[in-house]
């Protein structure tokens, strides 16, 4: 955390969060106001099927909340600029970069991170198992993001062509260059779930 972000500034920040504002003109209709139209500092987040109350700064990114507030550190922060894909999560089923989404943007949505895709009994998702079987990852840092993009792709297109897989995972960098192995993994998962 930024060392300049003192506790005082932190508290000042959260009381403005939630986005309702009162002025002489009245109360703005906002999507997270409480009964009085004043700010909501504590919001409920639906993460991996569980609704959890979280204290969220107004301009906090989802990646920050997941890693540093909820201890869901499977979501990696690579570039923190939407240029690498390591932080990819699903927001209402759509792949997004968690580093480039405000947490306050997802408070009415269902977020799924890498921790949330295995079965309740612990069975790995078909994509995870296929990545193991194909030796897809090398160093593994980009893998959570690759898995999430693959899950999003297979949810919308269960039988993709190799080119469609390439396009579907094109927003995820792998600096080891293991792209072909990831594509093999997605195609293997596709055969198993279809």
């Amino acid at each position, binding site marked *: *955390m930024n060392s300049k972000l003192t506790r005082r*500034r932190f508290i000042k920040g959260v009381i403005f969060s939630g*986005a309702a*504002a009162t002025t002489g003109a009245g109360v703005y209709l906002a999507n997270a106001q409480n009964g009085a139209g004043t700010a909501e500092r504590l919001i409920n987040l639906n993460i991996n099927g569980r609704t959890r109350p979280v204290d969220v700064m107004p*301009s906090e990114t989802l990646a920050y909340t997941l890693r540093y507030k909820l201890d869901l550190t499977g979501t990696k922060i690579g570039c923190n600029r939407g240029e690498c894909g390591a932080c990819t999560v699903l927001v209402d089923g759509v792949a997004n970069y968690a580093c*480039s*989404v*405000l947490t306050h943007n997802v408070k009415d949505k269902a977020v799924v991170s890498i921790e949330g895709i295995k079965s309740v009994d612990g069975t790995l998702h078909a994509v995870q198992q296929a990545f193991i079987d194909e030796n897809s990852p090398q160093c593994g840092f980009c893998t959570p993001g690759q898995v999430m993009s693959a899950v999003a792709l297979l949810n919308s297109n269960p039988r993709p062509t190799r080119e469609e897989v390439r396009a579907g995972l*094109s927003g995820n960098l792998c600096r080891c260059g293991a792209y072909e192995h990831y594509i093999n993994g997605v195609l293997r998962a596709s055969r198993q779930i279809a």
Partner: protein
Amino acid sequence: MPSHDVMPNMELYQPVQVEDALAIADRLAERGWLVGGGQDTYGWLKDRAKSADALIDLSAIESLRGVRETADGIEIGALTTLSEVATSDLIRSSYSLLADAAGVVASPQIRNIGTLGGNVSQDVRCWYYRRGLSCYRAGGNLCYADTPQGMNREHALFDQSRCVAAGASDTAPALVALDASMVVQNLNGERVIAARDFFVGPANDIENTTVLRPGDILTSVRIPSAWANAEFYWEKVADRNVWDFSLVNVAAAFKTIDGQIEDSRIVVGAVQTTPRRLTEVENAIRGSRRTADTAEAVKELSTTGARTLAHNGFKVPLMQNLVKRAISS
């Protein structure tokens, strides 16, 4: 210069109605920063290269989303995501030029949240400017890019005026080619601006890339049926197929009768701050066929007036070849 990763502390407004957003934007004026998908915004803020007191997040305003048919074409809400634009049946069926352009912006994840309004309103690409240096565009009195040592391979060929940065939008040239218009609201009402007049170059306004001013919100984009189902050509050339900004792109539309070009729009992006419409080329090819000979004949005309910088000379033949392909493909 320090580098940051966390967002700065800011207020956040999340109105769900346009009227409230307009009131907040008007009240905050320069202290507020409108956010659609935020994909251009967060980098500026994390880098501390620009700042504002408050974010005005428009993403919860449902009335600004979606594609509708109108009496004369279609209207696209400014908050419609680029993925939605790229896959919309209404757009694909008759205005595929725009869908093709939207479909190659940045990366899939960015298209999933980045909006059409944000894509046309994004700031120019220049690393000196984006690093927070006090250049002309940032209110200073020099340009770091247009120097013998400057890194200007991606910069402009035309209409430089102190600033030599190029516009980055892929959808902007397509909208100009389709004769689109932009619907802009503020507390005083609504104005409809032709896309070609929406974008402004540094000679007219060096600190802005569009006519939008504090208090204004781009609410929708209208595309008239005039160019529906025309013959379209879109191509983007970048160093990488994903994420990267165009080095040059071309958006073109042709109406032909018995194989002869009756009317056309040829618009090139990333060669100046604004989309560059090649009106002289359009006039020169009227009545001709879409052949290699026709294209070759306007090759030189297409880049007349280009002023190359130290490292962007390759953009001249690149632009000529893209224009030729657009005409003859």
